[in-house]
C-alpha cells in the first residue's frame, strides 16, 4: 500500500492505496464519488473524464498514486455549495445534451476543460475537442449545442452566435 495526499473537489484527502488502484476506482470506491463512470478499457470513451490540476484526463488510465500531490475535480465538484450547477452543466440540461446520462459527467468535464482552453470554440472545434468522449444516445448534436451555448454564456454573450442549423 502507498500513501497518497491529494485534493478532491477542494477537500484535502489522505489515503493508503494499492499502487495499481486506478484513479477512477479510487474516486468511486474509496471516496464514493460515482459520477465518473467506466465505459471502456482502452481509454477510448471518456466516460471517466475528470480534471487533474484543471486539465481533463481519463481517470481509468491514471493511477491513484499519480494523482498524489495534485488536485482532482469531478462533476460533483462543479456544483456550488448552494446546489447551483455550473454553466456547462446547466447548458447540457437546457439543450437536452444528455439522455441516458452515462457519458454525461465525463462529457461535462471534457467540455469544461475545452472551454477553459478555448473560450470561443467553433462547432468544429467543439467536435474535435470532444472526439475522445463517446455518446451513444444524442448523436452529439445537442451536446455540441450545449457546449456552444455554455461558451456564449461564460463569455457574457459576446461570442458570435452560431448559425442555427436545426429547423
Amino acid at each position, binding site marked *: 500500500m502507498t500513501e497518497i495526499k491529494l485534493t478532491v473537489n477542494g477537500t484535502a484527502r489522505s489515503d493508503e492505496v494499492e499502487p495499481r488502484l486506478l484513479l477512477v476506482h479510487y474516486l468511486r470506491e474509496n471516496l464514493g464519488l460515482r*459520477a465518473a463512470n467506466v465505459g471502456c478499457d482502452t481509454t477510448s470513451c471518456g466516460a471517466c473524464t475528470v480534471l487533474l490540476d484543471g486539465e481533463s484526463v481519463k481517470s481509468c488510465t491514471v493511477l491513484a498514486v499519480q494523482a498524489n500531490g495534485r488536485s482532482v475535480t469531478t462533476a460533483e465538484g462543479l456544483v456550488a455549495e448552494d446546489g447551483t450547477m455550473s454553466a456547462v452543466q446547466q447548458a447540457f440540461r437546457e439543450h437536452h445534451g444528455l439522455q441516458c446520462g452515462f457519458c454525461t459527467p465525463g462529457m461535462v468535464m471534457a467540455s469544461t476543460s475545452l472551454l477553459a482552453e478555448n473560450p470561443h470554440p467553433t462547432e468544429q472545434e467543439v467536435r474535435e475537442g470532444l472526439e475522445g468522449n463517446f455518446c451513444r444516445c444524442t448523436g452529439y448534436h445537442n451536446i455540441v449545442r450545449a457546449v456552444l451555448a455554455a461558451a456564449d454564456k461564460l463569455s457574457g454573450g459576446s461570442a458570435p452566435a452560431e448559425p442555427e442549423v*436545426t*429547423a
Partner: protein
Amino acid sequence: MSMRGSILGTRVLRTEDPGFLSTGGVYAEDVQDERLAGACYVHFVRSTVAHAKISGIDVSAALEAPGVLAVYTARDLADAGLKPLPPMMPNMNQAMKQPLLAGDVVRFVGEPVAAVVTEEMYQGEDAIELVDVDYDILPAVATMHQALSGERGLVFADAGTNVVCTFGDASASSPDLFDGCEVVVSEVIQNQRVAPAPMESRSGAAAWGEDGRLTAWIPNQGAQGTKGAITGMLGLKPEDVRIITPDVGGAFGAKFGADTEHAVLCWVARQLGRPARWSETRNENLLVMPHGRAQEQKITIGGTKDGTVLAYRIEITQDCGAYPKAGAFLPSLTRLMTPGPYHIPRAESWSTSVVTNTTPVGAYRGAGRPEAAAAVDRAIDLFADAAGVDPADVRRKNLLPKFTEPHTTAFGAKYDSGDYATALEKALAAADYPGLLAEQAKRRASGDPLQLGIGLSSYVEITGPGGEAGGPNENGTVEVHPDGTATVLTGTSPHGQGHQTVWAMLVSEELGIPIEKITVKWGDTDLVPKGGGTGGSRSLQLGGAAVQQASRELLDVARERAAAALEAAPADLVFDTETSAFSVKGDPDVSVPLSSLAESERLFVRSVFTAPGPTFPFGSHVAVVEVDTETGKVFLRRVVTVDDAGTVMNPLLAEGQRHGGIAQGAAQAFLEEVVYDDDGNPLTATFADYPFLSATEVPSFELVDMETPTSYNPLGAKGIGEAGSIGATPAVQNAVIDAVSHLGVTHIDMPTSPQRVWRAIVAASGSKEA
C-alpha cells in the same frame, strides 16, 4: 376549464437531468444498498476460441489465489439442477440450447466457461487468469455461408443442421414474379453485424433475503421481462424474485430480459449466502452482449423503364450467432416490412436463420425493420440507376398515396396512416435537392477529387407492436396525495428517453399538478408487477396513453368524491386545471382541491390502455456526403430528415430521439462493423478496434417537422425511438454510392469504408489494382 396553455407539445426541460449532471446517475455499479453490504465480486472466465470441446478445466490455482471464495463451472450448475436454455420460440431448432456456463463445448469467443468469486473487485481479474481450460479445437463456422454449406460442420452436433428456423416459403416463389419488367436488377447486399454498445456495459447485483427471496439490480428495458428471464433460467417461483431497475446507461434493444451471466450472478449469491456484484469490461461487452443486424440479403427489383416498380423479392439469410436469441426472429419483422412505403404490385420474401460460431445476435435499435428499409431503399436506387430515372422521381412514382384509413400490405402489416409523398417533398425541399444536383453536376464535370453524393430514403416502420393477448397494451397508475403531490407507476422503463418528464407532463395536463410535484416510478417488480418495458418505440403510445387514461379515470373517481363534499351533482362540477380543484358550475367560490379528496381515502387509479394495433411512423431522409475518390474516404456533410411519428408531446425530447437514431443509423452505413476472422476470432472487441461513432464524424442534423396523428391512441402519437436509425442508414449508403455512381459504381456494401469505396471505384474503372 383552464385558461392556461397546454403543457403538451412544449419544450419542457427534463426533470431527471440535475442528478445525472451533478452526482451522476445511479447505475447498477453505483447502487449502494444495505442488502448489498459485504458483496463479493463475480468475474467470468471466457472462451478464447470460437469452437472447441472442453477436455478439462483446472481451477485449483485460481482457488489458491488471494481473495478467491469459489470457482464454479458447468458441473456445479448441473449438480444444482440448472439446465441449458432452449431457444425462445417453438419454431426454432430446440436442440440449440444455451448453457449458463459452457459445459462440453464452447461455441463463440467470449462464452462464459467458469465463474470466479472473490472478496475484492481486482482479485477476480487476477484469478480468472489462473483458471486453466483445455480446448480441443473444432472447425469454426465463422460465416453464414459456412453454416449453410456445412463445410465446417455443425455448431450443434445433435441439431443435425445449422438452420435455426425459416420464415416464408421459398418453394412458393413465383417464377413469373418479374414478368413484364423491362428493367430487372439483382444484388446481394450485406446488412452487416454491428454492436449496440450502450455506454453502460452489462452489470448486476444480487442479494437473497432471509425470507428466501432474491432481489436483483439489473440494467434492463423492462424489469418484468427481466424477472421472467431470471425465474426461467434459475427455475425460481415468480413470487421469490424482485427485480429493481437502476438507472440504465443506454440499451438500444440489447438489455431486454436478462443474460446468462445475470442468472449465474444470482445463483452465486445464493450458493455463498452473501450478496454478489458483477460488472463486465467493455471488451467482454463487445464479445458477448448480443450484436445487431447481421443479415445477408439478395434483393431483386423490376419494373418499367419509366421508373414504375412492378415486382420485388428479398431473400434473407440471418446470422444468429452461436445461440438462437431474438436475432433468429428478426427476419420475420424484416419480411413484415418488405415493401416499405412503396406500392409494389408483386413482392415476395423468405428467410433462413442460421447459427455460427460468433456472438449471439439480438435486437438492436429497429430490430428487423432497418434491415427491411435498407433493402428496399437500396433496391429502389439500384432500379433507378438501371432505369436511368432520378431516384427522387422513382420514389414519387412508387410511394403509396396518402391514406387516412388503414392500409394492409400483402405481408400483413396494417399501416394506420401515412403521407409518404409529403414527407419526401418536405425533405427534398429542405435539403434543396435541385441545388445539390447542380453542385454535384459541377463537381462531376470538373473531375473534382471530392465528389458529392446525395442519398434518399423513404421509410415506414412498425412501432408499439403487441405482445400480450388482446392487442398492444400497457398499464399506468396515477395517485394523488393529500399534500398535492402525485405518483405515477408505469410498466414502461426509460433508459434515456425522459419518461419522468413526459409522463409528468401528461398527468399535469389532466390534473393541474405541476410536474415538479409528480414522481414517476418504474422498474421495481414489487411495485409494478406487470409491464412491457421500453422497446419497439412503444412507450409513449402505450405507456403514455395509459398514464393519460389513468389520470382521466382518476378525475372521474375524484368527481364523485367532490360531489359528495360539495353536496352537488357530479355533472354540475367543473374541474379547473389552473387550480387543480373542482367547483360548482357557475359558482367558482364553492370548490374543493383535488388533493383534499385524497385525505380520507387513497385516490388512485390503475388503468390499462389497449391500442387497436401497432402504429407506423414514416419519413424521408436526405443524406449528403463528400467522397474523396482518391482515398475512398467518406465525409458525412448533411442529414436532412422528416420523421413523422404523429403528435409530439415534447419536441425537445423527440428531436433528441431523432438525433441519436440518425447518428446510429449513419454510423452503420459508413463506419461501424463487427468483424471476425476465418477462425471466428473477433477483431473488433475493444473501443480501440470497433469504430464507434465520434463527434467529429457527424454533422449537426437538420430536422424538418411533420405530424400526422394516429387515431390509435388519444395522444395521436406513434413511436419515435427507432425512426432515425431506420431512415438514416439507407440514405447515407445511397449517398456514398451516388457520389461515385458516375464512375460506374452501382453498389458498395456497408460500412462504406475507404477500402470498400476505393475498391469499388477501381473495379468500376476496370483497373487490375483492386
